[in-house]
């Protein structure tokens, strides 16, 4: 099995960092939801506080790394202008079924060389590339609440619920961005 540099970074962005954030969400949510004194012993709350701090703190870091690698490493390859020949903006994409060295994924989608693909970029990818950046901000806010309040978060239902809402918001945004990213990659992979 051989991976190009571009395929390697696409995997790091989507399948390693992005998936790690989405998969770890269930554990974090369960941890926050059940973080209440009536359900836990004092020792259990101490142990959970440490686990939540590291877990949700790591998730916030992963969310930042996901958007940074996506925007600054993978996205430039997605949007390269490779296909322009003379006045024909998408000449290099003509007749293709997938993007190649003469036709970037964005140009491939906009060229409609293999069907009705324009909206994959103009609506879906345009949405994804922007909203994804809201996820790490919400995840950081959730992580700060967990770090700052620690064990007292378990004693204060309002703050615990607030942390959950921020955390769920980060997940929802990351989930939308991740799903769109996976679908666009299926239609127009970076090679």
């Amino acid at each position: 099995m051989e991976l190009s540099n571009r395929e390697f970074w696409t995997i790091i962005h989507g399948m390693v960092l992005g998936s790690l954030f989405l998969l770890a969400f269930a554990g974090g949510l369960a941890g926050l939801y059940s973080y209440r004194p009536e359900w836990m012993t004092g020792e259990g709350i101490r142990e959970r506080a440490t686990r939540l701090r590291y877990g949700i703190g790591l998730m916030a870091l992963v969310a930042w790394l996901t958007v940074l690698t996506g925007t600054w490493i993978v996205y430039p390859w997605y949007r390269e202008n490779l296909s322009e020949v003379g006045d024909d903006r998408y000449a290099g994409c003509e007749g293709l079924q997938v993007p190649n060295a003469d036709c970037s994924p964005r140009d491939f989608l906009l060229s409609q060389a293999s069907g009705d693909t324009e909206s994959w970029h103009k609506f879906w990818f345009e949405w994804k590339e922007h909203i994804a950046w809201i996820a790490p901000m919400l995840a950081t806010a959730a992580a700060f609440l967990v770090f700052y309040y620690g064990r007292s978060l378990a004693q204060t239902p309002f703050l615990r619920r607030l942390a959950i809402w921020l955390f769920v918001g980060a997940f929802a945004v990351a989930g939308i961005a991740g799903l769109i990213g996976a679908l666009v990659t299926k239609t127009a992979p970076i090679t």
Partner: protein
Amino acid sequence: MSITVEQSEAKPSGPAAAVVLASGIGAFVLGLFTTLNEASSGINDFLQFSDDVGPLSGKTILATAAFFVAWAVFAVLWRGRDVAWRPVLTATVVLLALGFLGTFPTFFEAFAD
């Protein structure tokens, strides 16, 4: 699940309220520049901090800077203080909603130059 506003007895709410409000400000700035980028070719040029990334570079750098600067400013202003959660949460929800609206393609493309 609903959020009923109450105060924590353990620690002052100021530092926590600062980061929550900052997340709304960061999202709002992202939505604002995403829409302004469509409305003005001058702003589009300004936001091209990187040729490879295009205007997305400027939008995301400014939004991230807004998030961290707002967090730092409010953290200093509200250090050791108990801040009422209700106005902070109301402002955050409104800013987040505007941020989501501004980053929604159907909305920002309506302002295309």
